């Protein structure tokens, strides 16, 4: 039975950076991930990652990939972790394709889109309803669309869509949009956007494909004719597969300043953790910290 020094779960900014550090420490490690880039791959314009005044999410992901290709890394892509559990001194990582063992694990599995929970959501997924503006946005050229949400990811999606769609409605359930001031300012300058505050979506309507949504604004219901809708109402951590790990109320894994969780040998980094800021650059930094902590942990641990 092979026991790796380390298994990294996830290959977003945190996982990739941990990977670079682990490779440079010459650890015997494995990366298990569904995708490369994580949420960063789905970001539009990135203007706050030092070293790049401007880069898009897909381009930054490409750069990440080029960086890890420099090293000889075992990367298992399209693989979904089902369970992480510590037995004695070692940790078992069970996936949809196999079972692996390691002395340490870094959980960098990030977050995924929260779903709306309204009628029609499952039926219209990929039939007008999407969670990825950068992927599917171009299919709505010249059409009317709605963005559901009011934070940074909603603003990011809306800013991509005003360039493509005919008209963009932003359905925001609070009194004012959140997110970065600079993004809000850019958005209000667009002449094809309407911001509907205090509004909730109550139903998705259509016939095979979305053709309208029903919204409630200050108690008043109405229908908006749209052929696309982009759900950006926040994220939930991918943390359900770890047994007996401490999490906060949001489901984020609790870590100390060295990225250690409550389970010795299991570390976590990036958006899946309770680190205060969810930024690409923060996640990358946390990934580096976690890998270095693992290195110290392994050197102290008796074989």
């Amino acid at each position: 039975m092979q026991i790796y020094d380390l298994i990294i779960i996830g290959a977003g900014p945190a996982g990739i950076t941990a990977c670079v550090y682990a490779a440079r420490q010459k650890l015997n490690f494995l990366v298990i991930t569904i995708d490369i880039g994580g949420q960063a791959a789905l970001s539009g314009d990135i203007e706050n990652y030092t070293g790049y005044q401007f880069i898009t999410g897909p381009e930054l992901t490409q750069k990440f990939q080029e960086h890890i290709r420099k090293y000889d890394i075992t990367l298992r892509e399209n693989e979904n972790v089902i369970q992480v559990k510590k037995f004695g001194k070692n940790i078992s990582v069970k996936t949809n394709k196999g079972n692996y063992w390691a002395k340490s694990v870094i959980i960098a599995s990030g977050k995924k889109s929260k779903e709306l929970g309204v009628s029609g959501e499952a039926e219209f997924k990929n039939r007008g309803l999407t969670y990825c503006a950068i992927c599917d946005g171009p299919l709505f050229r010249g059409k009317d669309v709605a963005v559901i949400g009011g934070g940074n990811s909603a603003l990011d999606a809306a800013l991509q869509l005003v360039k493509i769609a005919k008209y963009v409605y932003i359905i925001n359930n609070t009194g004012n949009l959140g997110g970065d001031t600079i993004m809000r300012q850019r958005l209000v300058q667009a002449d094809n956007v309407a911001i509907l505050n205090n509004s909730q979506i109550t139903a998705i309507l259509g016939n095979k494909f979305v053709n309208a949504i029903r919204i409630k604004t200050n108690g008043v219901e109405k229908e908006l004719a749209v052929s696309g809708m982009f759900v950006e109402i926040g994220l939930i951590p991918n943390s359900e597969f770890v047994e007996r790990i401490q999490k906060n109320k949001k489901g984020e894994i609790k870590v100390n300043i060295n990225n250690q969780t409550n389970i010795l040998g299991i570390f976590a980094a990036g958006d899946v953790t309770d680190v205060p800021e969810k930024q690409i650059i923060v996640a990358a930094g946390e990934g580096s910290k976690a890998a270095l902590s693992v290195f110290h942990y392994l050197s102290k641990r008796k074989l």
Partner: protein
Amino acid sequence: MAKNVKIYSTPTCPWCIRAKDFLKENNIEFQNLDVSSDQLAADEMVKKSGQMGVPVLDIEGEIIVGFDKERIKLALGL
């Protein structure tokens, strides 16, 4: 014999990029249809796959939605 492979994609979608990279790495010739600029291709994709998410691969008539590496491998006989 080389199979007829088409990919319906958008230039920015990360899964499309990965799918195309995968085909290139395996020396598979394919026709890329950019559905963000080619409306006919977009309509064709929706008609073939019954949905609007990209990428969609058409491998000798077998329609694969998303970058489903295992199914793509199987369809290509890799």
